[in-house]
């Protein structure tokens, strides 16, 4: 029986790996969270009683950092395709460091917001929304950094190479998504202010 099952074709393998496909569905559901929050923001803003304030300039710096981290992530992915182990690891480490830098930047930006009396709680919803957007994004980014750590470990046990690209492809996709998500959120906040 075992042999029969081993030989049994599992059906035609479709164009996409189920795991990568699943990741895309996961990304869609995260996107829905942010779409619903954005629309809540617009609806609430249209109702009036809305405080307007300046966003910290630090957000521009963190935006740059996250764009750079996407570049290093992609560099690592290309290195994996070319079986360049050193560059894979270097890329992953640089991405993780940039990710951490981004999070620290966001944290400092929150402090700057607090210093101009924009608080998460006890104030106008306009103030709270900024923290919800940035906070939820950082929460997802923590997941991304953990993913990077897992990939780094895998690269040290020689599991990331041109014949085993699925995981690093997923990691890259997720990381690019997080970068894009931040750029969208920042743009959304600036344009609606």
């Amino acid at each position, binding site marked *: 029986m075992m042999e029969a099952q081993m030989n049994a074709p599992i*059906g*035609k*393998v*479709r164009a996409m790996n189920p795991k990568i496909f*699943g990741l895309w569905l996961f990304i869609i559901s995260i996107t829905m*969270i942010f779409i619903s929050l954005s629309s809540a923001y617009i609806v609430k803003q249209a109702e009036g009683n809305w405080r307007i304030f300046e966003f910290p300039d630090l957000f521009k710096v963190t935006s740059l950092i996250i764009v750079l981290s996407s570049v290093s992530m992609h560099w690592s992915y290309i290195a994996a395709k070319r079986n360049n182990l050193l560059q894979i690891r270097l890329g992953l480490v640089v991405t993780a460091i940039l990710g951490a830098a981004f999070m620290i930047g966001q944290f400092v930006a929150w402090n700057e917001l607090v210093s101009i009396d924009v608080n998460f*709680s006890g104030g106008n919803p306009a103030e709270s929304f900024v923290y*919800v957007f940035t906070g939820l994004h950082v929460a997802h980014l923590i997941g991304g950094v953990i993913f990077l750590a897992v990939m780094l470990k895998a690269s040290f046990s020689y599991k990331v190479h041109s014949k085993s690209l699925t995981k690093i492809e997923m990691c890259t996709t997720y990381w690019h998504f997080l970068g894009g998500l931040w750029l969208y959120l920042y743009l959304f906040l600036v344009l609606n202010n």
Partner: protein
Amino acid sequence: MSVTDIQLQENTAHDDHHDDHHEQSFIEKYIFSTDHKTIAKQFLITGIFWAIIGGAFSVIFRLQLGFPDMTLEWLKPILGKWIDEGGKLDQEFYLALVTMHGTIMVFFVLTAGLSGTFSNFLIPLQIGARDMASGFMNMLSYWFFFLSSVIMFISLFLETGPAAGGWTIYPPLSALPQAIQGSAGGMTLWLVSMVFFIASTLLGGINYITTVINMRTEGMSFSRLPLTIWAFFITAVIGLLSFPVLFSAALLLVFDRSLGTSFYLSEIFIGGEALPNIGGSPILYQHLFWFLGHPEVYIVLLPALGITSEIISTNSRKPIFGYRAMIGSMLAIAFLSFIVWAHHMFVSGLNPFLGSIFMFLTLIIAVPSAVKAFNYITTLWKGNIVFTPAMLFSIGLVSFFISGGVTGIFLGNSALDINLHDTYFVVAHFHLVMGSASFFGLLAGVYHWFPKMFGRMMDEKLGYIHFWVTFVGVYLVFFPLHYIGIAGFPRRYYAFTNFDAFSAFTDLNTFVSVAAILTFGAQFIFIFNFFYSMFRGRKAPANPWRSNTLEWTTPRNPGHGNWPGAIPKVYRWPYDYSKPGAEEDFIPQHIPLSQTPESNLEEENELAKTEEVRESKNVEDSH
């Protein structure tokens, strides 16, 4: 040769290795199982457990409504201090009962119990896959649901009671713990429980979609998928898009409750004290909630409709009428379900112009719904109908779908809704079209696929008794509620004894309560039948309903991997019933066209010439 190919092969090889070399332990096999069939049964049993609790709650509040003067002292052993000194039901606990009845039925029974059971069970079996795309995620999906169930269950025993703000948990009531007892600890647990529930639904949904798209067997094109799979697939897509929105709504509510934000709160005085929250809007919550809430209706209903399509076609011995129209109408319903949410908010101060747009969009749903009802009836028309219990429940579903759907046209009208909103008319409408119809779909599915789940048949006689009592009972309960609703009875009221205008309806309310108790009692016939047949039922033949779909080509008790040999290849659509010229009145999907020259249409004969028939000896053996 791509890399992904190799990895997939490795994975299956690993699974087989795991399965064949040592017997799985009890825990691996029945508790932390990654097998889709076991997970489906876990969902089903948990769903049955919740259905009993949810049903019992409705009986308790029906006692209060039907017999307002009755003393409920005898319930004291169960309800304890919720029965006060005078033997009356506590008024706040009444609200908690209504809230938990809704929550349990909508989420735990008809979402997890229905989709969780049948999507898990049927998707791999009917598309010809060894298991779900990710067995681990599937297991996680069940255990998140289990955790969510445990938390919700614990909330029933809190001193302040479970959540009591209605299953829609509108703020500000739900956002202020000091508002009523039910908004305190019970509400917190409700929200925590729902977070796990959402995670469970998303994990399940991602798996269903991935499996249907990526794991179909050879020949199983989308145009050959059974309508059950189409329904589960579309349901999963709706869930994937709408549950994250519930997450957002609940997240902001949690912030308002616990962290002092003001998303939904503004200028509130409570207990003579002004709250600091300014600038929020409770209507915002309603928008977010109903953006999930309305699609949720179809998450509950579509799987039931898919199951019905399959059962009605099989037992009418006729191809389903309008296969493509069925798919088209499901897609249309799914699309429309996202752009009608504000019809729940016609009287919330919504701009009347916006109201007419949402009214228009709402009424359009009648079109694909009517297409489905029409197709069910025309499939039945002149069929050689076999009245199995599953078939009766499916026909019952069609009946509820029509009689409950018609009142939707009244309620969808923004002008009429001014009168009818929040009355028992609404209660009657959604209990028929969404509650009872989906519940009948669930029961029909259990009766139909029980032989595949447990290898035994359920008792038919008990099934017939169960059907007739339930079917008549449901109408006796919900039909009078339309009149009560038109008379102006508002939902969720503890008692109507203080209103003279309503006293003429006292007897009708008593009648409804008696019918509800009988209907609830009849469900125990099913529960007995279910558990008795699991161990003592007649052993099931390989294909008891003479059905075409792939699940009946597996052994009586399919093991891990479903098919002992090769997965059968698919050569035709699943509805070749009573095909002219054929020997039998059904031709299963795995029979090649080249083997049935007597019944082939002209173009099928052409196809048969180029068909690549794969040896599927094992499949034949397993018959």
